[in-house]
Every structure is written in C-alpha cells, then in structure tokens.
C-alpha cells in the first residue's frame, strides 16, 4: 500500500521533471529558430550584388560593404598568421620542453582566466599598447586580437598535444631521435586537429568581435590592398554593423551584414565539427 503510493508519487514527479526538461529544450530550439528566421528574413532581401561589390559613396548616397568584407579578411589573415605560430610554439614549449610543471600549471591557469576576460578590456589595452604608437589601424586591431586569441590557440593545441600517446615519444627517443625531431615528426602531426580547431574557433571570435576593434582599428570604409589596408583604419563587418545601425540608422544594411555573419558563423561551427570528426576517424584506425 505504502509502496504503491510512494511509487505513484515518484512517477508523477518524474513526469513533471521530464516535462520541464522538454519545455526548456523546446524553448531553446524555438529561440534559435526565431533568431535565424528573423535575421535572415530581414537581412537576405537587403543583400544585393551592389551592396557586396561597392564602397559607400556620398555622391550617390548608396552604401556598399566591400571595404568591410576586405577588412574582415585582412584582419583574420593577419591575426591568424601571427597567433598560430605564437600559440602553437608556446604550447609545444610548455608541454614538451618545460621542466618546471608548477610554472606550467600557473601559465595554463592564467591562460584559462585570460580567455574569460571581457573583450572590451583587450580593446582598452590594445589601444594603449598598439594604437597609440602605430595609430588606429587594422594592424593594431589584429595585434589586439592576437593577444585575445593567443590563450585559446595555446590551450587547444596543448590539450591535443596531451592526447598524443607517450609511447610514440618513447619509441622515437628509443631510436635515437633528438627532441626536436620527435616533436616535429611524431608529436606535431598528432596535434594538427587541435591547431585547426583552435584556428577555426578563433576565426569565429574575430568575426564576432566589435568592442576591441572599435578601440583599435577604427571604422573607415576605404577599399585597400592587404598591406595598405593593414596600415589604415577600417571597419570589419561586425563593426560596420554597429556603425550602420547605431550611428546611421541604416537597418537594412545592418541586417544584411547580420545575415552574412550568421551564415558565416554557422559555416564555421560546421567546419570545426567536420575537422574533429575527420581526425577522430583517422585516429581510430
């Protein structure tokens, strides 16, 4: 009797919990869908070839986002070109060479903490460190993003270095290979996936960054080549979105950019998942 009553109560409780969980899942999914549909719905009709292929002109009062697209590409390239060697190098040093494990632990902890700091603080620091000396320009922005992304690249690389079995290193050392040869031929190939994943995630972060870049890279809309572009101030897509929406009330353009960014973000996440799946498969043979 008592047991039956209890189990009934328990069953009721479980049903309730299940219902609540379903509700939160449904809510989350609905939110994501709503955002996607809303942004794409508002944005896509505003995306025209003219918008994508021209720069803004005061004469015709037309807006074009070609400079912002180029600036975004430049800043992504410059940042990755600097941050990948630095981050991977630091990770290799910390995992393979450093002998003081306590210091390594402290650095790892610091990197962990650094990646949680609000980006506007990086912007402030970047402004003082870079923009004050080299002027407001894409390069100053890229260097700021380097500082911002360095901990992430370092940590993801380190984590994947740690998954390379110790027995590979022993095998190579046992054949008389020196440290650098072991790292280069046996360890590094095993951590390519970590580097690629970290790089892709960084691209996502760079695309989404606005605060840090407003401080350091400015928001000009001139069409430049790579080198000139890095030396000149410029807005990335995300910064341009902010400027067009907030300062100029151009919501059509803002939503067009938002739709583009949204699609890019989805593609980036997809790519990261793909890379991981590809390497997981290769590892299991």
């Amino acid at each position, binding site marked *: 009797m008592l047991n039956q009553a209890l189990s009934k109560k328990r069953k009721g409780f479980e049903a309730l919990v299940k219902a609540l969980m379903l509700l939160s899942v449904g809510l989350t999914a609905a939110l994501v869908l709503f955002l996607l549909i809303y942004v794409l719905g508002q944005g896509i009709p505003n995306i025209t070839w003219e918008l994508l292929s021209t720069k803004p002109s005061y004469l015709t009062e037309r807006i074009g986002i070609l400079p912002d697209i180029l600036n975004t590409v430049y800043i992504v390239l410059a940042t990755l070109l600097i941050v990948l060697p630095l981050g991977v190098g630091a990770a290799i040093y910390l995992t393979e060479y450093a*002998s003081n*494990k306590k210091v390594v632990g402290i650095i790892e902890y610091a990197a962990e903490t650094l990646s949680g700091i609000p980006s506007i603080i990086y912007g402030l620091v970047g402004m003082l460190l870079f923009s004050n000396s080299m002027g407001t320009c894409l390069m100053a922005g890229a260097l700021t993003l380097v500082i911002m992304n360095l901990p992430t690249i370092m940590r993801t690389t380190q984590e994947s270095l740690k998954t390379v*079995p110790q*027995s*590979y*290193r*022993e*095998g*190579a*050392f*046992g*054949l*008389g*290979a*020196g440290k650098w*040869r072991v790292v280069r*031929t*046996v360890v590094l*190939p*095993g951590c390519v996936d970590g580097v690629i994943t970290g790089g892709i995630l960084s691209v996502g972060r760079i695309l989404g960054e606005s605060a840090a870049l407003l401080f350091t890279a400015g928001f000009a809309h001139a069409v430049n080549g790579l080198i000139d572009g890095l030396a000149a101030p410029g807005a990335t897509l995300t910064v341009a979105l902010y400027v067009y929406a907030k300062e100029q009330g151009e919501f059509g353009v803002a939503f067009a950019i938002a739709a583009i960014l949204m699609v890019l973000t989805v593609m980036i996440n997809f790519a990261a998942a793909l890379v991981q799946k590809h390497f997981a498969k290769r*590892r299991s*043979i």
Partner: protein
Amino acid sequence: MSIISVKELCLWYGDHQALRNVDIEIPEKSITAFIGPSGCGKSTFLKTLNRMNDLIPGVKITGDIRYEGTDIFSKEVDVNNLRKEIGMVFQKPNPFPMSIYDNVAYGPRTHGITNKVELDDIVERALRDAAIWDEAKDRLKKNALGMSGGQQQRLCIARALAVQPKVLLMDEPTSALDPISTSRIEELVMELKGKYTIVMVTHNMQQAVRVSDHTAFFLLGELVEFGKTDDIFSQPKDQRTEDYITGRFG
C-alpha cells in the same frame, strides 16, 4: 666477452630507491633474461642501459655503466648515438601512426640516411630480419596501425633493427601477444642472437628457459643471482631464487 658492464648501480625515483647496488656483466651476442616479481626493478634497470630514464623527471642515478668500455653517463657520450647502438622494443607494440615503410625508415632517416635506394634496402633487410617481410611487402605504404598486435610487435623489432644496433633491449615483448605470435617472436629472438646482444625482461619462466643463455634474478631492486640459465633453473645458489623459480612467491 661482456658488452655492457654495470658496477654498483643505484637508482632513485625521487625518494624511492628502485635499484640497489646492481653489478652485472652482460655477455655479447647472446640472450640475457631478466626475471623477478612485479615491481622489482627489471624495467627500470633495462631502461637505464640506454638512458631512457633521462626522460623521467626526478630520477637520480649513482654507479657506473660501461658500454664497450665507455661510461654512458659521461659528457662526451651523445645519448642519441647511445640509443642508436642500444635499441629498445617495448612491452606494448608502439608503431607510429604512419606507413609501415616510414616506421622502419624512421630510425635510418633520423641518423641521416636519405638516399631512396639505400633506404629501400635497409627497410627490406630489417623487415626480413624481423620475419615480417612476407606479411608486409605488399602493404608497405599502408598505415602500420592496421596490422595485428603480433605483426605490430615484429614491425617494432624491424624498426629497431633498421638502425643497426648492437644491443636490443626488450621489455616483456610478448606479454601483450597471443601464443602463436609469442612463439614467432621467441624464434625470431633466437635467430637474432647471432648478430645482436639481446637483453629481455620476461615474466614467463618457460620463456626464459627456452630462449635465454643467461638469466638474472631481481628482487626488491637487488640483483640476487646471475648466471647461465641452465644453472639458475637447475641449481640456484640463493634460497630466494629457488623460492621464486619454484613458484613459492611472486
């Protein structure tokens, strides 16, 4: 003739002493087996012989190890050359995640051989010597991780032979393998002893009797007894050796 001679070797992992005053002369071109209960320091001692313990932080070593008369701990000795002379095969097969060919060519390439013809020749010879050529010759470009455990272990032996070492250290090379693979490797080891000095850790007494010429019995970090395998197993001098080989402990 001994190729490696060890005097009063002690080794500590931090505060824990794992080897106590080990003295041994390892005879050239023959098979020496190390036996003893788990944790007695067999692997530790084996790894000391080609300084693989250098990789472990906190290891302290005193005493003297001479390889062909040279102190292996002296500053003039290049540890990479030492490991080229004294190769190693591990308990768990550990081929690199690359092709069979690249696995075997790894060592020679490390030591500066780049000529394709020469490499092909070395790889084939090593694979033949390790009795895996017939199984490997049609799949040299295939990933080594696709082989069976026994094949992988013979590949690891081939990989070690490819740098033309004089000594081969083997730490329980068959303990992760099935009986058929085990007997193939035992046969292989016995064939190799004409050309190489082999030092092998084993938990399997029958294996020690079957393949080795000399046997060393370790207990709690001490080398209790060392001698001809026949003598050790038929008339051990030390009571502890007798207790161990008759299965009274360990």
